[in-house]
């Protein structure tokens, strides 16, 4: 079958990385291609046969410079191993979700336990989704790297819940189980289809808006109850604010951030 369009399949630990990698290879901006996620990736049994994310990039405009040879093959490839290497060596299928540096056996085990635990929980909650885990660098260099467990699937809003209640519960239970299994606590974050990043942005906006309001009205602003990590985002966003300071008041789970005007000198 010969398609009139140019396709490129890319494999990487996560969907986002695969897309970035593909765009780099093609030398095209994100607008110039259509992205189809062929496989969101998944854990493997006991670390064997774990699949990386696989995406197909289709160049929309044929007048765009074609760097890559057209790859014409059916999209529906059931077996993930059959991916043609596109002028680049395919990462070994058993490789854990980490691209740049080598992972120690301990780190590999951490990622494996994390993704297996979350998969197990989701399966028992009757939620169909694919799960992958990787390390993310902390914002501050003196902090431990976090384990990010990424959950992808169809209509996972049920996993987030009101005010991310369900997502937080899933994260809390998962980190307890993983911590017990590994015999030490690790910072574990679960994300569902980019929700954390969206929420992070929202919270920063909220922080700035409420700080503005505090300055405007001269009144202390009290935000809705948030989890520790959400409050932290607010505190960090307003850390260097000239006119207000933030503090958390109240008891969990109703602890809230208050934004107060600094005293005028």
């Amino acid at each position, binding site marked *: 079958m010969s398609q009139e369009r140019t396709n490129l399949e890319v494999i990487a630990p996560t969907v986002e990385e695969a897309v970035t990698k593909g765009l780099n290879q093609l030398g095209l901006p994100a607008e110039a291609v259509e992205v189809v996620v062929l496989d969101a990736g998944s854990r493997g049994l006991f670390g064997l046969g774990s699949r990386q994310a696989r995406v197909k990039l289709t160049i929309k405009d044929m007048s765009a410079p074609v760097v890559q040879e057209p790859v014409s093959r059916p999209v529906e490839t059931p077996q993930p191993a059959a991916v043609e290497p596109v002028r680049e060596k395919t990462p070994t299928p058993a490789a854990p979700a980490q691209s740049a540096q080598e992972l120690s056996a301990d780190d590999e085990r951490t990622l494996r336990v994390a993704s297996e*635990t979350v998969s*197990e*929980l989701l399966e*028992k*909650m*009757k*939620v169909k989704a694919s799960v992958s885990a990787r390390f993310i660098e902390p914002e501050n260099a003196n902090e431990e790297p976090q384990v990010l467990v990424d959950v992808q699937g169809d209509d996972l809003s*049920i*996993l987030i*819940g009101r005010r991310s*209640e*369900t997502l*937080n*519960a*899933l994260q*809390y*239970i998962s980190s*307890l*189980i993983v911590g*017990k*299994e590994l015999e030490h606590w690790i910072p574990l974050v679960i994300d569902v289809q980019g929700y954390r990043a969206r929420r992070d942005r929202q919270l920063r906006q909220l922080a700035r808006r409420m700080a503005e309001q505090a300055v405007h009205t001269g009144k202390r602003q009290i935000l809705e109850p948030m989890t520790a990590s959400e409050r932290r985002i607010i505190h960090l966003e307003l850390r260097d604010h000239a006119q207000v300071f933030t503090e958390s008041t109240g008891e*969990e789970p109703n602890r809230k951030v208050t934004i107060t005007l600094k005293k005028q000198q």
Partner: protein
Amino acid sequence: MKELIDYIARSLVEDPTQVQVKQDRGGSKVRLELWVAKEDMGRVIGKGGRVANAMRVLLRVAAAREGKQASLDVIEPR
């Protein structure tokens, strides 16, 4: 639902052999009882009931998938 609570409890306790989840039959409202060893009560309840409440939140999702409502009680062993 039962499997979910059973899995979580067994993963958190020191003595998994003492974990038992009982599910009463019934209509759309299902009641689960979780039994664990006395020494493990704290591990499945948590500070201020945090662990038990998180389990309830996840249980709610599992129950909703079956069109049901579920409650969870952690039973104090005698």
